């Protein structure tokens, strides 16, 4: 666990996270992230043990049966209500801008 990060590493993380950091802000972001990651060094002192999953957050002592709902149609939003909410529409369809080349 590196307690410090380089500017290049911060830029790489930003690319992975799909956000942009202004060059002038990189040092501050690096310091903030490094401070938090440095604090996380405390986890090095944990005794070795296998990790556990995140499902069933209350643990095995409470046997809650988690399952997905039946795949059946439920109450649907009426088309008219949906159209009324939409920023733009065309007949009974919601009109959305092109991802590239219009309204972008």
């Amino acid at each position, binding site marked *: 666990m590196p307690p410090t990060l380089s500017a290049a590493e911060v830029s790489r993380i930003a690319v992975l996270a*799909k956000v942009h950091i202004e060059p002038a802000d990189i040092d501050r972001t690096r310091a903030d*992230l490094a401070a938090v*990651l440095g604090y996380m060094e405390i986890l090095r002192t*944990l005794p070795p*043990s296998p*990790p556990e999953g995140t499902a069933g957050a209350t643990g095995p002592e409470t046997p*809650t049966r988690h399952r*997905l709902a039946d795949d059946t149609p439920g109450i649907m939003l009426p088309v008219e209500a949906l159209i009324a909410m939409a920023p733009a529409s065309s007949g009974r369809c919601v009109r959305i*801008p092109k991802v*590239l080349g219009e309204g972008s």
Partner: protein
Amino acid sequence: MTEPSSTDLLRVPWPHGPRSVTTGPVLETRSRVRSGVTTAVDVTREALDRVRTVNPTLNALTQVFDDAALRHAALVDDAIARGQGDSLPLAGVPIAIKDNICLGPDLNSDLGSVLGSGRTPGYGGFTTCASRMLEHYRSPYTATAAQRLIDAGAIIIGKANMDEFGMGSSTERSIHGPTRNPHDRARVAGGSSGGSAAAVASGMVATALGSDTGGSIRQPASFCGCVGLKPTYGKVSRHGLVAYASSLDQIGPLTCTVGDAAAVLDVISGHDPLDATSDNALREHASDGLAAPIADVVLGVPRQIVETAQGTAAGDVLAQAIEHFRSRGVTVIEVDFPGIDFGIAAYYIIATAEASSNLARFDGVRYGRRHPLAAGEGLDALYVKSRTAGFGEEVRKRIMLGTHVLSSGYYDAYYATALRARAVIRADYATAFERGCHAVLMPTTPGTAFRLGEKTEDALTMYLEDVYTVGVNLAGLPAVSIPFEPRPGSLPMGIQLVGRPFGEASLLRITSV
């Protein structure tokens, strides 16, 4: 208009002692409306008047539903006139909903048939999560918890301010501006459910829904002198709650009293097929037997907290709480919590990792505001520009942190290790309960409400505000914060009781000892 004084901002003068009594504005309003002493419409008008007087100073509510609230209240009064009051356990109770909980549009033109129809009486509005990203987002559906409140006759007065996407401990990181503490407007209300806490403490509403991922109900409740209940993970449906960290998030009530919290919990809890992690077992209602005597109560106090909090406000309030419970015949023992030192680190790894995944959908295409592009720019630029402009600095920082701890080469060192720490923390609580503890007692916060701007420049200092609350979320347990006064004349501060899984009824009963 003259600004209200500090005394005018509070519904109940402070100090008021531990608020572990069974009656409060929720139960009182329900009783008065059902019995015809007053009407839901009159109660709603009073609440809206209070909002107009107080909210400009506190900025607790970011949207107010004047017309819809009065329409809904009229429906409640009609139902009571038809003899259906018994089916409305929150008849006429004014409530606020945190702005990360979805309210859908009016789907029914015949408002007279709304109650019990599973539809909303025209609340709608925006679900902004206090973010530029969702500034104009209208949800097409209503969260299960909110729908259950509507069906129970609660009147939604407005949406409550919060830290953006729930990422903060002060409600300063909101596009709507900061919420101020009703006890001292120069101080924060806590967060991320700070708007909910301030709205309850100032009497704008009788209760409010918040969400708690690492303490976001209990910490603002502590700062504002409210009761804040974080239910067991799975107790309340998360359907319609905008996800921050899905294995930690839970909706819960903020109220003036424990009895009110139980009444609201009973309405919003229960199985929901729309949430796969929703508990589907039959459980005791929290309100049942709340005032009944309880004998031979044993509370555990983590030894590590007793040692480290000594001489601090947290230590003072803990000592006061121990004395309070012992004077009422409760046995208080020290228990060992070796995992407590790992809580913040594990939480900020797991929460940010889950957030980096959950918030990936906000890219300007699937969700969120789309940023304009220059000629020749492509899809990657669209994503990056939309996310950079839409998210605030703290949210971007947490997404980056979560991205880093999940990235190749770091996963085992951070994320897998944090999951191990989570198991240790859960084992600490399990051991305390196996030793016979009915609940674990600890402070809710390290201190009282801090000043606006005091901690915004140092992320780690702000994160450490959650030191006593995050373990509960990592273990998935229920916890309630009730107000104490750490020193004579001081601001309020909460003491926290942590219960066994799905043991809300017992937990709330213990507070009434």
